[in-house]
């Protein structure tokens, strides 16, 4: 016996997803091309940092996406726990490795940017430190999915972990900022919204849009894969029993 009612929802989602995917892909490619052009050729070099400032156009959207993805994961986890929808748990599962990759990208670009700025690959800057901790939160979440055999229990356990994480992220951020002001002078990387010149802000926002589009495309592809893998798993179990 297979619980088809559990899969009905994801199956209709697959149809929708396959229609949306081409459009999302095209939009992402256009945004990415525009963003890269703007940030590499249009945006002016910084008067202090020179051409290296262009790393910012990858680093900052990556950091945004690292947080955004965790928020998506937590939101999906909460929906999964409250409305018991299997699609939500799979969304959270599919999003986690994407978020971890964005986080890693933010860390690597941060290090690459830091090298010419500070003359060293790693500085315990508040922003970088928070992103590093976020990276560990992602790794823990992914590892918990892997460690629990039973699918339903894994889905609900990781959902609880994601919610615990999302409550803790602001606390961790606040702690690290506090710690940083005690131990170090203000960061070179500080770029608070309004003070950024429009010539930098526009490429940054376009890149942010491109990263979001990329996230959606990869999420849809991964989700489709997760749904199919899950259906295969359920079928295999059913065959084993009969």
């Amino acid at each position, binding site marked *: *016996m*297979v*619980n088809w009612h559990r899969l009905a929802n994801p199956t209709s989602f697959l149809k929708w997803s396959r229609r949306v995917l081409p459009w999302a892909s095209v939009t992402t490619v256009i945004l990415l091309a525009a963003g890269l052009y703007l940030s590499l050729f249009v945006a002016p070099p910084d008067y202090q940092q020179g051409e290296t400032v262009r790393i910012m156009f990858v680093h900052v959207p990556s950091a945004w996406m690292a947080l955004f993805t965790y928020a998506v994961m937590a939101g999906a986890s909460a929906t999964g726990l409250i409305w018991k929808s299997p699609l939500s748990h799979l969304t959270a599962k599919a999003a986690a490795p994407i978020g971890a990759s964005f986080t890693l990208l933010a860390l690597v670009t941060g290090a690459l940017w830091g090298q010419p700025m500070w003359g060293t690959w790693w500085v315990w800057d508040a922003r970088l430190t928070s992103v590093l901790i976020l990276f560990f939160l992602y790794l823990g979440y992914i590892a918990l999915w892997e460690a629990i055999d*039973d*699918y*339903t229990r894994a889905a609900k356990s990781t959902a609880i972990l994601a919610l615990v994480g999302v409550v803790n992220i602001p606390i961790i951020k606040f702690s690290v900022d506090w710690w940083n002001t005690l131990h170090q002078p203000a960061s070179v990387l500080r770029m608070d919204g309004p003070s950024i010149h429009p010539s930098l802000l526009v490429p940054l926002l376009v890149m942010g849009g491109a990263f979001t589009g990329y996230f959606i495309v990869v999420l849809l592809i991964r989700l489709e894969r997760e749904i199919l893998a899950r259906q295969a*798993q*359920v079928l295999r*179990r*059913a065959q*084993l*029993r009969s």
Partner: protein
Amino acid sequence: MPLTGRNLTCTRGDTTVFTGLDFDIAPGDIVVVRGANGSGKSSLLRLAAGYLAPTEGELRRDGVPIADDPERHRTSLHYVGHLDALKPALSVAENLAFWSRVLAPKTPASSRLDHDRTLDRMGLSGLADVPTRYLSAGQRRRLALARLIVCSRPLWLLDEPTASLDDAGTETLLGLISDHRSNGGMVLAAVHGSIAVDDAVTIRLGECRMDGMS
């Protein structure tokens, strides 16, 4: 307070263990669950205990769905499973006293004498101060079953209660069950071997197809 199950479907992991199961237990009843390994006997008991929610169907206690008042249900049943819930480092009396206080905190402080009488009844006299780690499997099972009488609850869910009991132990258990039923208690027991109860209602699990063929 009778327990009724209607159209119960139980799913463990990704597999459906049983589906469309109905049963009724009224005061004084004993319902015996039989079936091969993996047919869902333990699942049915954990479902009845409220540990596990049915994928479909509903359990009602006294007409009220147990999901609506889980506290009332969980505090009016005993579950004795394969695990004895005993701490090896605590003595027999300490283990018994702990569960009687945790499961029935409102009953007036159970006296030492009560626990002694319980241990006598279970054939564990003289072992009160012995650390539980020195007990045999059969003695541990007797101590686990002692929870049933040290704290009075109307519904007993027993998962293979005779496992590792000797003949005398099984006899004691049957005595407990018959006392419990004559006081209006209810018993749902999963049994693998035989159990000498005459008027038991039997639920057979995992044999629907065979029934259809015969």
